[in-house]
């Protein structure tokens, strides 16, 4: 398989949710393709295509999840090479998590995958994250972006508190919020900078908020 064929196969494996993506990534490495190219033109291309299908209603959460799993398998296979080669992300760091009191993390996980595919370094704090823990990690990682998720109305006050504290930080991170009970209006009332109604919208929203074109 030639250079282009390998990258196409990797993208296709991600689209199909096949964990063969990992072995194809290793083949691509053996063929001399740089890890950054494999991520960008193979794995990310595949997941972005699935993201587009998801946004247009042509695929659903399970399909996006297996694609994300295939992508993660590919990233894991490439990890030693990426670290060794010093190919750090060119984009900003995003701290992401589900707010305190909430344990629903599918949406957050999908946003994470889409942002990673777009080149962001994503620090995932998981679920049930206290406001102080979010702020500490933003500070420690010099993250420019804080992304918060919740699925319940009972935990919206915790999201609100986290946003308020984040807005008082210096330098202040860009704050994104999302989740079932959140709307654009509510996001604005909470003081957040942006709201994405689904995971596929997150990269373009963030690019707009950070003042650059999607995919830069």
């Amino acid at each position, binding site marked *: 398989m030639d250079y282009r064929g390998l990258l196409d196969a990797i993208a296709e494996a991600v689209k199909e949710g096949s964990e063969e993506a990992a072995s194809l990534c290793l083949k691509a490495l053996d063929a001399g393709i740089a890890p950054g190219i494999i991520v960008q033109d193979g794995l990310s291309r595949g997941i972005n295509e699935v993201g587009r299908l998801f946004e247009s209603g042509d695929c659903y959460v399970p399909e996006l*999840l297996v694609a994300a799993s295939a992508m993660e398998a590919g990233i894991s296979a490439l990890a030693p090479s990426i670290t060794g080669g010093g190919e750090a992300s060119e984009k900003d760091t995003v701290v992401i998590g589900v707010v305190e009191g909430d344990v629903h993390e599918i949406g957050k996980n999908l946003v994470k995958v889409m942002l990673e595919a777009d080149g962001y370094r994503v620090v995932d704090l998981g679920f049930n994250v206290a406001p102080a823990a979010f702020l500490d990690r933003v500070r420690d990682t010099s993250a420019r972006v804080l992304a918060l998720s919740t699925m319940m109305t009972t935990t919206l006050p915790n999201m609100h508190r986290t946003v308020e504290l984040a807005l008082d930080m210096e330098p202040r991170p860009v704050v994104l919020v999302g989740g079932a009970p959140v709307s654009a209006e509510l996001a604005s009332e909470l003081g957040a900078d942006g709201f994405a109604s689904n995971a596929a919208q997150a990269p373009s929203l963030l690019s707009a908020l950070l003042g650059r074109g999607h995919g830069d």
Partner: protein
Amino acid sequence: MSIYPRVRGHLVRPTPGMLKAAAGLFAVRGKAMHLLPLERVLATVFHKEPDRVPVVHFLLGGARRLTGASYEDLSRKPEVTAEAYIAATELIGGDALYNVIDLSVEAADFGQEMVYPEHSTAHPNYLNPRVKTPDDYSRLEKVDPLKTPRMSACIELGRILSKKAGIRYPVLGFCFGPLGVLAMMRGAQKLFVDCLRCPEKVKVALEVITDVLVDYVRLQCDVGVDGVMLDTLFASQSALSRELWDEMEGPYSKRIADEVRRWGALVMLHNCGVGPYFDLQIEYMEPDGISFAYLPDDCSSMSELKEKYGRRTALVGFVPTEAIYREPPAKIMEIAREQIRCLAPGGGYMLAPGCEYPPNNEIAGALALIRAAETYGKYPIK
């Protein structure tokens, strides 16, 4: 004791024909006087115009604030739950009682470890899922709902509510769908992936769960609930594709709905996902009513929804909980007014939030729903 008499140990319920005739009579009576909530709901379910649009406010966790009950007691002690739900309905208004507490009742009784937060809904301990690997699906075992802590408590809640409701309120039982129950034991994310990667393993668990849920709804019917609401969240664009739901839950949900109907109770559905598949759910479960939070996947407007499904099932909804959380009562009434205008003419519509009333909110939003129904929901709708 339920309003239905027992003959040789079995409840005797009116036939659908008798209920339909009664609904017609209530509709006639409703033109001249206020109806009881039970009469109002029955007329609505049979697509007659009652005196006014009924309201189901789904004030579950929020009801505890009226009686001072802790969240944990509300979740685990049926007498405490019953007291709170009845107080909420009598103080605020509302046209139905329901024995839904949270979505983990069934999973807990299959052995899922639970967490009971002080100020929020009980939920599984997701760090310790009952189904840790796909091989664990085959390890789930049948349980007897009467011998379990949580399902038996809900059955008891149904019994207490049916007794207290008398002929005044309809009482709805509740049952999470088989995939929902499994999601509580595996985690939705892993379950979604398993549905694609190892569906046959998932189905082994679904068979066991469905057997238990069939028993569970039968036992609820036997204590006198008037209907059972099945939560089929996964039949929506938020979750599975139409094809995958068709394969993974459709046939199982049909077995549960058929059992409810076999015992003469109403089949109601709740699906608060985005783009619910009304047509598929109707095909499998033939529900008397569907509670929903978003327009179905094949409708782009309320008028299309009414046109397409308004005669096939009663519509229950769909004031956004997000609006109830953040909007003042006047705005909630405005939203409700528009929904009443579009969905209520001809009957077959109950005003409700799209999902559970935000449990830590003030009750002003629930009062606004009642007031909207009383102000804008009187038949004939203007």
